[in-house]
């Protein structure tokens, strides 16, 4: 997963793959969640929460786990 050029491909790290699979499975609206949360059907709020969690997880993995020798100058704009 980490080579001599200090390149780290996040998808080759087991916990990243497992995290993505768990989140993708959690996205599927099959969970026995009934009633309303904050006046909105709980299943929809749960689906939305999973979306937020997925965005946070992906952003974390992209920024903290993915390493590339071409990272330098990352504050350029």
């Amino acid at each position: 997963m980490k080579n001599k050029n200090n390149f780290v491909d996040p998808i080759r790290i087991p916990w990243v793959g497992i995290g993505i699979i768990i989140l993708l499975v959690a996205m599927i609206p099959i969970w026995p969640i009934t009633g309303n949360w904050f006046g909105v059907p709980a299943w929809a709020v749960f689906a939305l929460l999973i979306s937020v969690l997925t965005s946070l997880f992906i952003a974390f993995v992209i920024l903290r786990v993915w390493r590339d020798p071409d990272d330098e100058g990352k504050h350029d704009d």
Partner: protein
Amino acid sequence: MTEFLPFGPGALIFIAIYVLSLLGIGFYAYKQRQKDNMQDFFLAGRNLGFTILFLTLYATQYSGNTLLGFSGATYRNGLSFLVCVHFMTAIVVCYLLFAPQLYRLSRENQFLTPGDFIYHRYQSQALRIMVTLIMVYALANFTLAQMRTLGTAFAGISQGRVPMWAGVVGLALVMLVYESLGGMRSVAWTDTIQGGMLLVGFIILMGLAFSQFGSIPDAIEKLASNPETLHKIKPPDGDGVRNWISFVLLVGLGAAIYPQAIQRVYSARNAGILKRSLATMAFMPLITALVSVMIGLLMAAHLPDLERQFSSNGPIPSETVLTQMCLQIMQQSAFGYWLVVIIFASLLAAVMSTADSALLSISSMITHDLYGQTFRPNADQAHLTRVGKCITWILMIPLVWAALAYEGNLIQLLKIKFELLIQCVPAIYLGVHSRSLSARTVITGLAAGLTITLILIALDWSRVSGIHSGIIGLAVNLAICLAAIVKNRSFYTD
């Protein structure tokens, strides 16, 4: 789409200023060009910074369909179209599966198109041509749909003062001029304005929707109390769940390998900028697709009979829910009127930014992968760049013609772009990770996937138990490729 909105001359002047500013940016980009070669023209010299890369990714990924189509689909299907937030998030998840390796390889080998990676990885010109043709087909469909939306939007904003054909031809000419002047640099810089307008448009829409129609819980209560709309707040059933999974896979896997998206990965100034842009993109579904879902939901609660109403052109389609909302807002005050003008300018921006990116990408693939590699392998860069510009102009003629002569039977062609595009998934997603996948295996998988998908579509089984035909084709395609990898036992070898 905008046929009911009473826009005045002020709106036209606003749009004209916006369009002229695009030409100005094109001219400025022309002045900023560094070399007369394909890398500079099609990839902006691989020098896009964070703001421009992020906004061009955003403007390219979110089209006019996000505003109109998603709100319309939510109006029809209710909360179950929350799947759009998931499939737009899945696109960024899918970037993570191949972008780190592809970016590294693109820097080492100076890739220009997705076809460059395919040839570098598999050493097969046949596979490169197959993948390029599929991608060109998918993008041509995509551009055609955008051109049609562009004409309808412009005709609506001008209130018939400018006919649809003039809107399509005029805006196509503007795109051609700024694209020919500065290539990717022009497209990315105009995307920055267009992406910024789109973001502002969504934020305004969110505020307007709540102030006009109340909160989401109120809308849910209204939908629940009406037996005709109760199903719109229920979770999807068996077929609906399978369709949900299928949508996430189809759009997530497919949109991530749109050639214009891959070329933006190549165009980043460095890996740090690419990472920050993709990380920011991960949150865009929450302030873009979700806003469209909320508008659709609010309109379903407050205007449940829309599809039973008629205009001079027949039944009012659900895609006009946004227009209906805007109509109510703009009639209330001058402030509301100008907010709606900004929203429709952002809609025009969304369509133009998606169309220009797709057009540039098609032109680069035809010039580089088909013409350059097959017919003129020794041509110099300046010649190929000139050919690329000519191809962009020549391509626009049939696309504009098809957009104007659009008939119902084209809808089926438009619908199957993702189904065909995702057959390229194994070649790219597995290709960046596995050395043991051969060109012969990938071609076999691709041919099998395409055949199954097209047969299912021809039999009118575009979905089988909620699963898209393209996903079924991809399953067979992937099975062939994975079986070859397992047989060679060298998956994940570097």
